Each structure stands twice: as C-alpha cells, then as structure tokens.
C-alpha cells in the first residue's frame, strides 16, 4: 500500500469515529434525564427529565438536554395512604396500585420504592392487587412496550415500620430506565391513631384492673383476718365450755351412736343436741357449714371426723366413740 492507501485508511477511521459520535449524541438527546423533586398533590406527578449526556471522543460536542416532557408518569394513586389497625398492634397489609405511563421506549423499565420499608411490587392483575404471597419483588423490571408504555403496578406496603399507632412513612416511588434519571413520586403511608373506644377501654381497664386487684387483695386479707379471729374465738369458747362439750360427747353423742334401737336420723339429732347445748354459736362458718351438710345427709362417720378436727381437746374421747361404734 502506498501513500494513497494510508491516506484512504486514515479517512475511513475518522469517518467511522465521527458517525459513532454523531449517533451517540443523537441517542442521548432522545432519552432525557429528570431531576428528582418531591411534589405533593393529588394530580399526576410528573418528573422532569434532566438529560445528561456525556460526550466521549475527541471533537464531539455535548448535546445540551432538551427541555422536554418527562419520560414517565406515575399516576392514579393517592398521595397519602392511611392504614387501619386490625386488632391491637396488628395492622392490615395495605396495597396500592398506580399507573406508570410513558412513551414507547426500548429497554426495560424498572420500578422500585424508597422510604417505604420493604415494599413489594408486582404487575396488577385485572387492575387489582394480586395475593401478597405472589408478590416478592422489591425492584420490578417491566419489559419495553410497543407503542405507549402503560402498566398498572401493585405495591404491597411493608407494615413493619407501622407498628405504633400514628406512625408514618414518607416514601418515594421510583421509575427509571437504563441510563436515565429516575422519575420520583412521593407517597405518605400512615397508621391511624388508636380508635377512641379502644383508648377509652384501655383507660378504664387501666384503672379498673388495679382497683379490682386491690379490692381482691383487700378482701382476701379481710377474710384471712376474720377467719383467724373466728378460730381464735372458737378456741377460747372451747376452753370456757369444755365441761359442756365433754358432757355432750360423753352423753349425747355416745347415746346417739349407741342407742338400741338405732336413733332415726342421727345427724339431725346431733345437730339439735349441739344447738340445745349452745355449742354452735362460736363455730367458724366454714366448719359449721361442713358439719351441717354432714348432719343433713346423716353421715355419722364424717360428723365424727369433723368433730375430731374441730374439738382437738376431745379427740381421744371421740375416737373412743368411733371405735365403739364400729364394733
């Protein structure tokens, strides 16, 4: 190859390089980049495209970003979402759908969130949220569309950060394509404060339960004290009436258990004898009820056992009676 050949090769390289530079600059202009800015409104939020095209290669002049419409719109969703508690600290898992609309582009579109915990995304099914179990992507990749790009996206909010009543998340929905600035849309998710009735009930229980416990303890203490006093009074009574009690056991009780023919309704006769000898007046209520019940059913064995327990000073004498009766 001579000199002409070398000149021809050099011109071919330059030509190719120039074409590449030209093509790259044209592509950058058509994409555009948007700067992120939060705007609260109920209308569609649009992002601005801030195109930033890099110039590569010598001699290429960077193409300034065109002041054009953003590539995507995120629309058809509320700017604020209120989550109601189901029961106490349990909250429903909220789901919201929104529409991503944009011109036809090559390349896939990605959607994700920021500031909304581990929100999960999926394409809506029949414009509705699919089952949460079917949704597990935190970054959703949507294939390009022929014609207008329009996709309804379902987003399951992460309830974790909403554990406290009144908690809120100020989050973002981000939509972008390769080498473009994401379109950012804001979304506020808040948990309703505790229902008034629940607060009222909580207050009431907060007062009633301690009051009830206090009352219960007080009552228990009073019962224990009263019972202790009743037992002490009965012990004193037994000492003062020891002779009468002994006479009752030696005479009345012995006769009732050993009479021939046997006494009819011995339980009631025993109760009557105790009453006539005025031996029931100081008996503690629980013991009296047990004794009365045993007397009503004529259970002499139980009556003797109760009397042995109540009259420990006379237990030897009562044991003799029990032995004599069993013979």
């Amino acid at each position, binding site marked *: 190859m001579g000199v002409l050949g070398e000149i021809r090769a050099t011109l071919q390289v330059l030509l190719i390089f120039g074409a590449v530079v030209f093509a790259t600059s044209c592509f950058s202009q058509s994409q555009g980049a948007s700067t992120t800015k939060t705007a609260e409104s109920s209308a569609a939020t649009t992002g601005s495209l801030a195109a930033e095209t890099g110039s590569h290669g010598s001699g290429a002049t960077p193409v300034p970003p065109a002041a054009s419409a953003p590539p995507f719109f995120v629309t058809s969703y509320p700017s604020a979402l209120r989550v109601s508690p189901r029961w106490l600290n349990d909250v429903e898992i909220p789901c919201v759908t929104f529409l991503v609309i944009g011109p036809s582009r090559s390349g896939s579109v990605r959607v994700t969130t920021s500031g909304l915990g581990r929100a999960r995304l999926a394409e809506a099914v029949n414009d509705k949220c699919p089952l949460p179990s079917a949704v597990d992507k935190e970054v959703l990749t949507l294939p390009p569309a022929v014609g207008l790009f329009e996709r309804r996206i379902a987003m399951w909010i992460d309830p974790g950060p909403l554990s406290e009543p009144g908690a809120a998340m100020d989050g973002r929905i981000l939509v972008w394509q390769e080498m473009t600035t994401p379109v950012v849309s804001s979304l506020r998710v808040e948990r309703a404060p505790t229902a008034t009735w629940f607060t009222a009930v909580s207050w009431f229980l907060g007062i009633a339960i301690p009051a009830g416990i206090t009352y219960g303890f007080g009552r228990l203490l009073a019962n224990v004290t009263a019972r202790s006093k009743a037992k002490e009074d009965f012990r004193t009574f037994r000492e003062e009436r020891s002779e009468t009690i002994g006479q009752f056991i*030696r*005479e*009345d009780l*012995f*006769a*009732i258990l*050993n*009479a*021939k*023919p046997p*006494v*009819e*309704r011995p339980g009631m*006769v025993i109760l009557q*004898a105790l009453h*006539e*000898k005025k031996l029931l007046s100081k008996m503690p209520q629980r013991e009296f009820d047990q004794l009365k019940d045993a007397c009503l059913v004529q259970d002499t064995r139980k009556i003797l056992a109760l009397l042995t327990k109540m009259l420990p000073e006379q237990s030897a004498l009562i044991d003799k009676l029990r032995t004599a009766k069993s013979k």
Partner: protein
Amino acid sequence: MNQATNSYEILLAALTGRQEFGLRTNPFTPTVVENDNPTRFEYGGGPLNPFAEENRYHLRYYFDVYDWMDPHAVDGLNGDGRLRVFERGSGQKPMIVLISGFQGTGRTSLKNLLLFEIATRSAKEPIVTEIKISLTTDRAQDAQNLASTFVKNFTTPTNMGNVRNALQESIKNWRESRLGSDPNMEFLFQSMRNDVEAAIPDRPIVFCFDATNHATSPDAWRQICKAVALLADFVILFVSDRNQANLSKTILAQSNYQAAWIDAPAVDHGKMGRFLAKRLREERIAAHQHAAAELAPFHPDALKVLFSATQGAGQPENVTLAISFALANLKRAFNNKCNELAAALQAAGGDVEKIDPQCFWISEADMRDAMKA
C-alpha cells in the same frame, strides 16, 4: 246406768238370735258387775285407771298396743291386764320409765297401770307427784317448784303434817345455803328423801313428769330427772318423740340409772282388728262364740275404711291412727247401727226375722257415715 245405755242391752237382748249381734253388752260401753254393783265402763271416756281402787276392773280392758323396748325391765300385758315383767333392780338408784307417744295413744293408761303395779308389788300406797314440766331459765326456781309440789302431797293424815314441816324446813335450809348461781338441787332432794324415809319408810315415791312440751329441751328435763331421782323411787316420764326417749334412756342408763322405755305408737289396721276381735269375743254370748265371724257385726271392709288413706297424693300406704280416735269411730259406728236396728225393729213390730239380714252388718257406708260425724 242411764236410759240410753240401758237401751243397748234391751236391743241386744232382742237380737241374741242373730250371730252378728249375739252380744251380751255394748263392747264399747260394757256393763260390768263389780261387788254386785253394775257399773258401766266407757271407752273414750278417759284413760284406763286401775290405780284408783274403784277402777280395778279397768284391768280387763287393757289391750297391748305398746312396744316394750326394754322387756327385761318392763314387759307385756297378761290376759288379766297385769305386766308380765316389772323389775326394779337392786341398788339405790331409782327406776326411770320413759313413755313415748302422742296424745290419744294410751300413754296415760299405761302410766296408771305402772302406778297400780308399783302399789301392788310393794303392797304400799305410793306417794305420787304429777308434774307437767314447764321449766324456767332458773334451775333453782325449777327445783323450788318441784319441791313445793311434792310437799303438797303431805296434807293429810295427821302424821303427814310432821313430814310436811320437815320438808319445808329442808327447803328453807337449802334456799339459805345456796351459793351463787349453783342450784344445788341434789342437796335439796337428798334432804327431802331423808325426811320422808325418817317418817314414812318403805312407801314408794313416784314422780310423773309430762315432758311432751316441745319448748322444754331434753337436756333440761334430763337434769331435773337426775336430781329428782335422789328423792324418788320411780320416775315416769312422758315424751312425745321416740328418738328423745331412746336417747334419754341410753344416757340415763350410762349414768347407771335403771332406765326402761315403752313406746305407745299409733295403731294400724292389723292391731286394731286384733283389739276389736278380742273385745267382741269377750262380750259375745257363748252360743255364737264359734259361729260368728271374728269381727261381726263389723264387716271387714268397714275396718279398712277406717284405715284407708285419704284422697290425695303422698298418703302412706300403712295408715296408723291414735287408738282413742279409732275407738271413737268404731263406737260411733256401732251405736249408730244399734239406733238403726232399734228403729227397724220397731217398724217390724218386734219381729227380728222381718229385718233385712244385711242390716245387721256395719258396712263400709256405715263406717264412712260414722267418720263424717
């Protein structure tokens, strides 16, 4: 004898030919000849009382309706109305006889029989004090009342006056010697015993208590009985409740008293039938003794009517009645039948054969009519 009762004998004499009515006298108001004196006994006219000398013949009218719970001490009636067994054991302590039963069951008749037995067996007239127990809250006052009642026995004859003075002196000493709230009844009655024995030894002293008042606790009258037992040889005690009699007897026996219990229950159909058969047999003339039905002129169904349960739920199958009530109805039925037959006889011109044979029976309807009166 009055005219009305005479008329029964006249009628019965006219009916001696009839098996059903071959009776010597009205079995419920029999005529008895005692010491050549005809006298009439009337069932339901009061308790049997052979203890009164003029009523010795009452013995033949006793019928054993009683339950003798301690037959080793007191048992049964012989055919002549005497007790088969009446043993007071040796020793100082008296015999206490408890008689249980409600009014109209023959308690008083039994008490009178016991008094008769005491008098007969000891061959001495007993000193009997009868008291309806009505206790106060003050045992000393109760003791005073008992002692005063006992002293009233000693008003006649002359030697009793000395005993009375001695007893009153003992009561006075007792009152003055009492300390605090202790009634000290034992001292009082022991002193009185000594006074009586010193003046009139060997005469049995008998106390008869009526403790059927439910307001008086058994504890109280048991205590009184034990105290009075220091003075008495015999204590006869009426109680209405079987259980109380049983218990009291057991308690007294435990304290080494000789205690016996006799129950005077209500009678059932069987027992009343046996009584009626015995009564009719005793008054039936010899000619009809074997031919007549046992209960004639009472139809057996008439007795069933007397003991049938009244209409209504919950009536016991085995109906029992106080013997006085049963006797009163049987007597009324018999007397009504006599009146009816007297009228029929008069209408028949004195010819017994003209009277319908069915008329000689006391039927169910006759008994119902008698019960309605």
